[in-house]
């Protein structure tokens, strides 16, 4: 069966510090991979998605970047965090193709102080 792992689960970072959130998917090949952000009590904002190694699409201009160095690995990064980067970050995957169920990781709570 397929599983998705995301870490760290929580982190508190000072303004201006770097960020790296990592996500891996097991039990499938060539997945589509996603990063979403959810502000407290709000909806899910699509940040990045990837259909293959090295292929990243950005949905909104922001202080974040994403990379996909391996087929089942997706990384969310920032060089200098802002207070507004605080939120709940969710990695997700779908089987290749459109209109598929989205499977989410457990999420990472980021607080920028």
């Amino acid at each position: 069966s397929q599983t998705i792992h995301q870490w760290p689960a929580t982190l508190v970072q000072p303004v201006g510090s770097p960020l790296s959130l990592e996500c891996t998917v097991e039990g499938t090949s060539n997945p589509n991979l996603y990063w979403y952000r959810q502000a407290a009590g709000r909806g899910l904002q699509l940040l990045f998605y990837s259909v293959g190694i090295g292929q990243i699409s950005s949905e909104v201009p922001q202080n974040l970047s994403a990379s996909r160095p391996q087929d089942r690995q997706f990384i969310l990064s920032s060089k200098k965090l802002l207070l507004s980067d605080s939120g709940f970050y969710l990695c997700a995957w779908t089987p290749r193709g459109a209109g598929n169920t989205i499977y989410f990781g457990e999420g990472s709570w980021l607080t920028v102080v």
Partner: protein
Amino acid sequence: GQQVMQIPQYQHVQEGEDFTTYCNSSTTLSNIQWYKQRPGGHPVFLIQLVKSGEVKKQKRLTFQFGEAKKNSSLHITATQTTDVGTYFCENDMRFGAGTRLTVKP
């Protein structure tokens, strides 16, 4: 992709009352998915609707896809405290704003 609009933003009900959340789009949707997110958790897939006019049921939950495939609804009959959470619709990777349901015992 066009984002679906979801209402209401919040719904507070007495246990045993019914609950409905709605999603609407200005364009025809190929499909729509529904998810539930418990407080502090991550969204979990509930169901997918694909066909025009489709109705699917999961125990007390009824999901509908409009005839024109531009709207969808999730209805919960006789809510229970275990129904608490935020319900999202989704199309083409994009989610509605969600409806947060709270249930008073």
